[in-house]
């Protein structure tokens, strides 16, 4: 049973466009939602994170939108660049604070 569902599986965006990746969860005990960026052959790196008492968090070109009632959150990449081409994972922290549940990943390709 997948605790965090992520879509789309892959995404192609033109340079300068907006990339949007969506995640949904069921467990209302989740209390922390990070996003990770992974380049081929590398470990995932923390990109941005949000807590459920906040509806939006922005860091540079990256924004997380959080809808607590719908149990959904999304990553928006504004002015997407070819260097943003990577796989992105959403995650949610479990109630015991020791486990994180990851989405299946979205492979983003930003075309020049």
């Amino acid at each position, binding site marked *: 049973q997948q605790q965090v569902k*992520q879509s789309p599986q892959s995404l192609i965006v033109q340079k300068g466009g907006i990339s949007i990746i969506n995640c949904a969860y069921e467990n209302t005990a989740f209390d922390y939602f990070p996003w990770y960026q992974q380049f081929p052959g590398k*470990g*995932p790196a923390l990109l941005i994170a949000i807590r459920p008492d906040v509806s939006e968090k922005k860091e540079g070109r990256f924004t997380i939108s959080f809808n607590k009632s719908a149990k959904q959150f999304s990553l928006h990449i504004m002015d997407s660049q070819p260097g943003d081409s990577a796989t992105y994972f959403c995650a949610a922290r479990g109630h015991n604070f020791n*486990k994180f549940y*990851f989405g*299946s*990943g979205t492979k983003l390709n930003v075309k020049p």
Partner: protein
Amino acid sequence: SQTIHQWPATLVQPVGSPLSLECTVEGTSNPNLYWYRQAAGRGLQLLFYSVGIGQISSEVPQNLSASRPQDRQFILSSKKLLLSDSGFYLCAWSVGANEQFFGPGTRLTVL
């Protein structure tokens, strides 16, 4: 600052051979430690996590095992590798209730 090391970076092993992957963390004390496996083009599968020396929680029954002989050392092992054990193995750490930080990974190919 904290750093996490994994070795080896790549490994090619025959079916039935043993495995030992090592992960060490520097610059922090009493971290939570995690082993994940990532199949090609797939998501992250949590294999084991540890909240302290000698304390191992297994998430997926399989022919792998984990040990934590020291506070900042986490080892993934197998007595006999299977073809299905091929993948990208990631170690991660966290402190308290904060986010996880991942190591550079080990690419394992079982032939």
